[in-house]
């Protein structure tokens, strides 16, 4: 029964025919699609031009740039230590600082830095 046979060649012919079938979008559909495109483009434009809510403040940028909380903790410790040393300095440091500040006894750089003369002589 040749009538019962539908060979692959005939099937390819049907596929060829189906490929020629054009599905032309209606003008109404095109208008709707382009309206969507305009709307989405406008939304995208507004979103990109508006400053982001998540944008960091200047203070936050500086805070992050200097290293965040660990750096702040280190600086606070150094500040407190400096104030404490300033208010009640150790005895050895007090002699040197008082002689420099009051001028009661001459203090020379060469006394504080014994190798300074050699450094100057060598140029």
């Amino acid at each position, binding site marked *: 029964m*040749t*009538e*019962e*046979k*539908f*060979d*692959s060649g*005939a*099937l*390819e*012919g*049907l*596929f060829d*025919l*189906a*490929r*020629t*079938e*054009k*599905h*032309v*979008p*209606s003008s109404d*559909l*095109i208008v*709707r*699609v*382009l309206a*969507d*495109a*305009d709307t*989405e*483009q406008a939304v*995208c*434009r507004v979103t*990109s031009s508006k400053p982001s809510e998540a944008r960091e403040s200047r203070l936050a940028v500086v805070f992050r740039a200097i290293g965040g909380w660990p750096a702040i903790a280190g600086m606070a410790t150094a500040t407190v230590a400096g104030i404490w040393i300033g208010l009640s300095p150790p005895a050895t440091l007090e002699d040197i600082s008082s002689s420099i500040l009051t001028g009661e006894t001459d203090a020379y750089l060469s006394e504080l830095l014994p190798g300074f003369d050699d450094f100057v002589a060598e140029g």
Partner: protein
Amino acid sequence: MAFDALADVSDDALLVLYGNGDTDAARALTQRLLPRVLGFATRMLNDATEAEDVAQEAMLRLWKIAGDWRQGEAKVSTWLYRVVLNLCTDRQRKRKGIGLDQISEPEDETPGAVAGLQEQERLAALKDALAALPDRQRQAVVLRHIEGFKNPEIAQVLEISVEAVESLTARGKRSLEVLLAGKRAELGYTDD
């Protein structure tokens, strides 16, 4: 960029242009992709109105993703066909959920530009046979033999392996030959 100058620009470059605010890029993409998307949705759903809704929704998703689109990472047409396929699958599931007796007869108002009664009969026979195939076989056969995709592209659209695509298309074609058996003379195919 002028509309005419966009004819040779690739789909993904057009999408990036659209994302950057080029108004002509949307028109070029619509002109290029909407007929294909509409045709595929119509073949999947056999319903012109539903196919239009799916096509519009798929294009809307394309516009929405434009800002995040990375050029060269994926093919726009492959991505878009996957979206269409998922939307069609959702609608087909809803149809099945409604129940067969509540579904109106498919109304395909777009017989296309094919002239001639016999050609329309042939197309109708092919549509009926495709509709009788299991979903995955129908999708693979339509993408391969009507939409003209290559097997690796179909694998991306269907999210399966290339081997699975080959198997689906082969089984689909065999099933179509069986389904169309007996209609050869009716459709005007005569032995020379």
